[in-house]
């Protein structure tokens, strides 16, 4: 903070503040890294027994009991002392800094989402050998999202489809059918909007940006083709973006809710009739509204199919760990071999779909009601991340959506601009 205690107006004081400024900028990586590390030190108090010490990192799951469960699994492992680092707040930043840190502070095993740069900078090791005998038990999407250049780097832990929750009673009262097209969704949301309740909640800061991928996948297109070219076209994207703009201007969207859309508070507190959220929140929503809960995939754009984003988490082994082999052995033990732990992790706290096809059939919690529907639509309409789609590319399309939808900028120019950024990024990676 520049002003604190700086009541002298000498040139020196000014120079010092200017340096503060530069320090803040330039030091970003180092100080933030140190701060993040300092802030997220937590452990189970274990780690001084015999043998190897491993550090396993999780982001903070919202569901009660998850941290204890992670610690329970770690404690049950006998071949190494596994310490859990449960990271609240901005996990991606903490993890990025953690992976740059030295021995003792870096994770050995961590959950994340695969990105090509993790492989190119040698942060993760290939885990193909851990998949032996169970490769067929994973969905194609879960394998693809963990594959770079033919090698598997991550093991899927949980699948978290995201879709729309709605209250059937509210729709019936207004005579609205569950929407299957984006036009229906707009009309329905307008119909459901009253003074106190908005029709639809998609998110506060991402209500425009998060619809880019549904537009693309609804049109049967993709982000990047097999040979890493841009996989979507101008007409589909612009038509979809303009519809999203229309939705935003209709006044039937809830914007500025106290929590973001990954949290079910808005539909629970009846701030909206329909909300975008994930499978993880289903137990909470059902607890609040009982039988009066149903789900639909995100309606299709322009006559296309509905879509479901299959989110979730995968686990990785840090290539710079001094104990790569031990870390791989632990990963195989927990996320491949120990099926009752995988089942417990997926179904005992929030709801997640087990990544293993064989476990889905036996999962009672997912056998009927909205949960069964979630499994069905995730398999029928789901798409997964592409590890070659970098955060820079995502920022480019996010900005395009924001600029078209919220700022009313020229769609063509925005599209060309985003595509230009993506192409530059593709050239710098594959060129």
């Amino acid at each position: 903070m520049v002003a604190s205690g700086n009541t002298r107006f000498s040139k020196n004081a000014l120079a010092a503040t200017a340096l503060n400024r530069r320090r803040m900028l330039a030091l970003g990586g180092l100080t933030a890294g140190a701060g993040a590390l300092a802030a997220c030190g937590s452990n189970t108090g274990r780690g001084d027994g015999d043998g190897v010490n491993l550090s396993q990192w999780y982001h903070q799951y919202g569901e009660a009991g998850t941290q204890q469960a992670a610690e329970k699994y770690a404690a049950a492992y006998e071949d190494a002392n596994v310490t859990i680092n449960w990271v609240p707040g901005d996990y991606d930043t903490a993890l990025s800094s953690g992976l740059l840190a030295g021995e003792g502070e870096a994770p050995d095993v961590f959950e994340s989402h695969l990105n090509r740069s993790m492989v190119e900078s040698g942060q993760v090791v290939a885990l193909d050998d851990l998949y032996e005998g169970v490769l067929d038990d994973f969905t194609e999407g879960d394998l693809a999202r963990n594959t770079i250049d033919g090698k598997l780097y991550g093991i899927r832990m949980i699948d978290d489809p995201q879709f729309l929750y709605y209250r059937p009673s509210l729709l019936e009262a207004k005579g609205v059918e569950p929407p299957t097209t984006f036009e229906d969704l707009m009309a329905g949301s307008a119909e459901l909007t009253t003074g106190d309740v908005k029709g639809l909640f998609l998110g506060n800061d991402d209500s425009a940006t998060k619809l880019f991928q549904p537009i693309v996948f609804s049109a049967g297109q993709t982000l990047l083709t097999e040979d890493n070219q841009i996989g979507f076209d101008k007409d589909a994207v612009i038509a979809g973006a303009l519809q999203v703009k229309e939705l935003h201007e209709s006044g039937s969207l809830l914007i500025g809710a106290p929590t973001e859309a990954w949290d079910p508070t808005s539909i629970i507190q009846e701030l909206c009739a329909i909300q975008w959220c994930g499978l993880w929140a289903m137990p909470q929503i059902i607890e609040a509204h009982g039988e009066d809960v149903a789900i639909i995939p995100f309606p299709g754009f322009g006559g296309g199919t509905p879509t479901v984003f299959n989110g979730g988490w995968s686990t990785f082994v840090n290539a710079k760990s001094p104990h790569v082999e031990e870390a791989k052995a632990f990963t195989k033990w927990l996320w491949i071999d120990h099926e009752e732990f995988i089942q417990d992790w997926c179904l005992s706290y929030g709801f997640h779909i087990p990544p293993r096809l064989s476990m889905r059939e036996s999962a009672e919690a997912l056998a009927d009601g909205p949960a069964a529907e979630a499994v069905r639509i995730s398999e029928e309409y789901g798409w997964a991340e592409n590890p070659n789609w970098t955060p820079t590319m995502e920022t480019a399309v996010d900005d395009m959506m924001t600029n078209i939808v919220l700022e009313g900028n020229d769609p063509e120019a925005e599209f060309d601009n985003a595509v230009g950024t993506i192409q530059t990024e593709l050239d710098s990676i594959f060129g």
Partner: protein
Amino acid sequence: MAVSAEPAAPEAGTGGPAPRPPRSGRWRTTLAFWYFVGPFLAGLMIFTFIPVLWSAYLSFFEARNTVTPAAEDYVGFDNYVRMFQDDAFRDSLVTFTVFAAFVVPLTFASSLGLALMLNRVRLARAFFRSVFFLPFACSYVVASLVWKMSIFNGVRYGMANSILDLFGLEDVPWLFDPSPPWYWLVIVTLRLWIQCGFYMILFIAALQQIPEQLYEAAYVDGAKPGRQTFWHITLPQLRFSAVAVLMLILIAAYQAFDEFINLIGNQAYARPPLVYLYYTSLGTQQDLGLGSAGALILALIIAIVTLAQGKILGFGKTEER
């Protein structure tokens, strides 16, 4: 007449020689010098100069997910070119400029206004001063959460929307709808609330140094208290403090990060350069080479603007006698 707020005390840490030591004890002086300067210098080296130089080094490399890029990743000025061609970065500079255009004059005027008022208050003076100064002790993160979740949330029970309700007006999504750009109201009021008190104290200190005789002389000459004495006595006498305050406000505005990232996050319409660079080099993007190039460009712009402002406003000039 010396009425500027410039203090005479030497800078802490330079350890000006105390009583002249005997010649044989000169090493003591040297030791004392390093004793005082050493820790400061070490901190400056470790936290400022080395990172700045490292950042400059990184900016010439394709450095993703690493702060120690390999020699073959040298890319020359590519990162600078990419940053200059990057619309999002240029937009962030525009966002910042708009922010400064709002917040600098507003903070200046409100803190001067507060200071003038408090300077005349006779009753419960200390109380009022503390009340206006207290917000300065609040962190931007805490204030952002209060502003975002209690005062300016977009639902019916947010404080601002409850007030609108009383007048039968529609709820406003304050932060997440850029047309009309209500988010500026949220951002600017937050910063005003936090920092006005501090600059107010600076102005009060300066006001108290204006000799009473000047006002008496003016009164004798027939100047009316109020506007006339303000323009012709108070303001000219405040000149040196005012210039310094203006500069501090501008530099503080350049540091805008906390409230933007906590209130709005990574949105194209309200993303100052620091937030953009934060996402470029930290977060998941981890493009440290590109981020460093952006950081250096920004540092350069800040240096130029600050120097230019100092030149134009005559910052640090000693008073003509």
